């Protein structure tokens, strides 16, 4: 599955592009605050002027509802860009570092400098957000950038290529379109950092290619993000507390699952764990709210993305139609292969060793696993690879604390889903199989910078103790200096220790 049109980029051009951008970077033009802010402001202009074009591209690639396109791609990008513009000057200022008695007299600071030329490989599910947000970070940090959007979302990829070429400083910011061959050619070049958003299989390929040049990587991968729904409800000020609790939890789960590209999002709730007693309540509530949101015929609803392509459709069918699982559907299951649509589907008590419970679903299927006690969920979650996100719905303070401490994931949200993505003061990234490194906000700036330590020493006070010939006296003085105690130093100087 790749772009059927002739690619503007020939794999053979990869070294040329890398070379050109390296030269541009070496010229120093990306380092000035003015260049960075002018490029960032240009990105804002693109977002302002071409909002409709992006919405149309997303509809073409994913049948993404306009609201989702606006909220989850365009608005998020505008926010990210504005927040960066606001804080960039402060981020660029060197950070003073304290120095100790051992190196007295000295002063030190940490200077942020750009890494050089960054390669950004983005994904198809949020083709604008996942392309431009890292670009914002790389530019803010003063780098030159090559962006390789996903070919699986071709309309968005083409629009990105067109818009960035038209508006941005193309000597330092380039878009390269293409599929596997072109990506492989790019990966053979030397970059100063590679940012990849996608799956673990390709993540490994990217890291291995990076290893040949000792290039650091930022890998934003995925996993099975669990939602644990507790049955212990104690909400003050809420009449019919349980009903209210279930309703809000349900809505937020639905918003995070089907409201995010119809489940095709790296931090979408993948599966639910709840108690046997609570499950029926939850299922009923889910059914009710799903109908309210998407109507009686969700396949017709304009508020749900479609499945991106027939490959992924087939993949999801395989998960749904697996023998041990097909009988567990309690809601939905309808599909339309021509239109690449699958209705919101809920499954109850699928076997743990089924495909749907071992692979990342990345689609509109929601399995619910039941347990006797909610604490059993910890082992279930921790026995698998670490996910990008983990969610918990509860009003029990102790459970919240326990969950946060025990569950290892990129990020954890209590009583909501996916919103941490929008908070730029939180680092966004995975751990273990879900990735390495983090970005968003200042973390983007740091991800694409080298923090250079700078120490200033004067010629005053040169301690002979440092130099040979080495003697026992010097050893004592050294020990005292390391200890940092003035008394110790004086004693050593006078030969009293």
């Amino acid at each position, binding site marked *: 599955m790749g772009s059927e049109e002739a690619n503007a980029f020939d794999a053979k051009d990869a070294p040329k592009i890398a070379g050109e951008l390296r030269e541009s970077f070496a010229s120093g033009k990306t380092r000035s605050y003015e260049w960075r802010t002018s490029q960032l402001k240009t990105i804002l202009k693109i977002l302002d002027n071409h909002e409709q074009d992006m919405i149309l591209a997303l509809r073409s690639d994913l049948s993404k*509802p306009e*609201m989702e396109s*606006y*909220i989850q791609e365009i*608005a998020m990008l*505008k*926010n990210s860009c504005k927040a960066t513009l606001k804080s960039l000057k402060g981020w660029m200022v060197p950070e003073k570092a*304290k120095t*100790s008695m*051992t190196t007295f007299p000295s002063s*030190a600071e*940490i*200077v942020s*400098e750009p*890494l*050089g030329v960054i390669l950004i490989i983005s994904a198809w599910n949020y083709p604008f957000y996942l392309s431009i947000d890292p670009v914002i970070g790389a530019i803010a940090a003063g780098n030159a950038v090559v962006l390789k959007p996903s070919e699986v979302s071709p309309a968005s990829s083409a629009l990105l290529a067109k818009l960035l070429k038209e508006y941005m400083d193309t000597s330092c910011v380039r878009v390269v379109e293409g599929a596997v061959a072109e990506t492989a050619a790019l990966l053979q070049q030397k970059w100063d950092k590679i940012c990849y958003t996608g799956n673990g299989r390709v993540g*490994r390929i990217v*890291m*291995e290619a990076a*290893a*040949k040049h*000792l290039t650091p990587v930022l890998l934003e*991968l995925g996993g099975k993000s669990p939602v644990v729904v507790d049955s212990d409800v104690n909400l003050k000020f*809420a009449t019919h507390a349980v009903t209210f609790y279930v309703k*809000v939890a349900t809505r937020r789960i639905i918003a995070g699952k089907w*409201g995010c590209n119809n489940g095709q999002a790296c931090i979408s709730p993948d599966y639910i764990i709840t108690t046997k007693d609570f499950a029926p309540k939850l299922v009923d509530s889910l059914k009710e709210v799903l109908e*309210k949101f*998407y109507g009686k015929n969700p396949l017709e609803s304009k*508020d749900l993305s479609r499945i991106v392509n027939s490959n992924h459709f087939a993949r999801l069918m395989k998960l749904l139609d697996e023998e041990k699982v097909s009988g567990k559907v309690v809601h939905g299951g309808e599909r339309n292969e021509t239109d690449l649509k699958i209705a919101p589907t809920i499954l109850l008590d699928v076997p743990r060793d089924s495909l749907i419970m071992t692979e990342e679903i990345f689609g509109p299927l929601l399995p619910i696993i039941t347990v006797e006690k909610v604490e059993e969920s910890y082992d279930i979650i921790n026995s698998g690879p670490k996910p990008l996100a983990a969610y918990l719905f509860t009003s029990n303070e102790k459970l919240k604390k326990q969950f946060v*401490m025990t569950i290892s994931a*990129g*990020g*954890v*949200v*209590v009583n*909501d889903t996916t*919103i*941490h993505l929008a*908070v730029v003061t*939180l680092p966004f990234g995975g*751990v273990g199989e879900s990735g*390495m*490194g*983090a970005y968003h906000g200042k973390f983007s700036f740091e991800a694409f910078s080298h923090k*250079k*330590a*700078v*120490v200033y*020493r*004067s*010629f005053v006070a*040169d301690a002979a103790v440092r*130099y*040979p*010939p*080495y003697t026992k006296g010097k*050893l004592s003085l050294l*020990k005292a200096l*390391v*200890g940092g105690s003035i008394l110790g130093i004086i004693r050593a100087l006078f030969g009293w220790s």
Partner: protein
Amino acid sequence: MIFSMEAVEESLAEARQTLRSGQTRSVAWRKKQLRALFELIHDNEEKIFKALDDDLGKHPTEAYRDEIGVVIKSLDYSLSNIEKWVAPKKSSVPMLFFPAKGEVIPEPLGVILIFSCWNFPFSLALDPLIGAISAGNTVILKPSDQAPACSSFLANTIPLYLDCKAIKVIEGGAETCERLLQQKWEKIFFTGSARVGQIVMTAAAKHLTPVVLELGGKCPTILDSFSNPRDFKVAIKRIVGGKWGPCSGQACIGIDYLLVEEKLASTLIDLLKKIIKRFYGENPKESKSVARIVNKHHFARLRNLLKDPLVAASIVHGGSLDEDSLFIEPTILLDPPLHSEIMTEEIFGPFLPIITLKNIQESIEFINSRPKPLAIYAFTKDETLKKRIISETSSGSVTFNDVMIQFLCETLPFGGVDQSGFGRYHGKYSFDTFSHEKAIMQGSFFPEIEARYPPWTAFKLKFIRLAYRLNYFGLVLLLLGLKR
């Protein structure tokens, strides 16, 4: 000694089991291990001095300054700060999400594999270990087999002081390293050469294991002119101390070569010779104050660098080698050919090439046309030159008017860039490097904002647009029906 694959897997399994038990999460456990390391050093100082002498001929003062002292400072710093580091850090959350709260909690990554290097076999093993323990991980430490006395000291002594179910030492050479690299780790910390760094990262990629690579490079030293001859003298003293002091030039942040204006060359060389004589006496081989070359392999490598006749011809001081005692004299070369191996490969030994320039400003271009080093040193009082160096060159670190001391500042990140590596440690950076910073958001059930949910309407779109612009006033108006 070769660790079988089973032995490696068993050790790893036990470390993983200990991690799962949760005991390494307690700050008390971590502090206990760090204090135990203190005791280990305190009780065994003489043994450590002997091991470093056996492996590298290091004098106790050098050993204390560069290895034991470094580790003690690091332990001190970690013990004083660990409670602060472990505490969750609050993040501000936009009012739009009120009353949601955000914070970042550091958690252990898991089982860490640390590969240390032979030149500072003690500090390069224990300093990362301190970081990994502070962050609550379990650790497998693989000391370099090229410093066998230290490796065996660590393997024998660490289990006597530290929790051996959580912290293990595995000795061995290339085969053992290969076996270790086939396993899955939560992080690999490697100090060594770029060639092996590549092998480590390639192996790590198979398991998506993040790595820190502390590599090397040719650390240049820019020597400007000084109006005050005393300053010049101090500079030369520091250069001599910084070149041959740490392990006779076998240091990743040691001075590799000097850049100086032609007119200063002869004064510089005279002064260097004088100070070398003052530090190491007439016959440096007899001096106990300079380390020896680690082994025959590196001795041969270094001897090879002088084989090129043009290089040999550029020697202006020293140049004598004694294979039996693995001793190489402090050697100065003046303008060896730039394409010779001594100027293209990291020297990692007691040869100091001096490259002369017409103007010291050319040093910047010289440095920039070569791979980014771990450290750049510059002796100058010229503020403009200092600024140029900082903004126009790139390196792990820059130190003005001294050598090596950036290593001693715990508040500074220690690491490379480009070919000199990536990732960093020391002080809090060690703690961070071995932690996963987990983002936590606590949402609230109130208020429940309808506009978040489908079915989508024009009203909801208006609401969201205003919300995203953080236009709270506009939002209120909209909700009150007062906004079009």
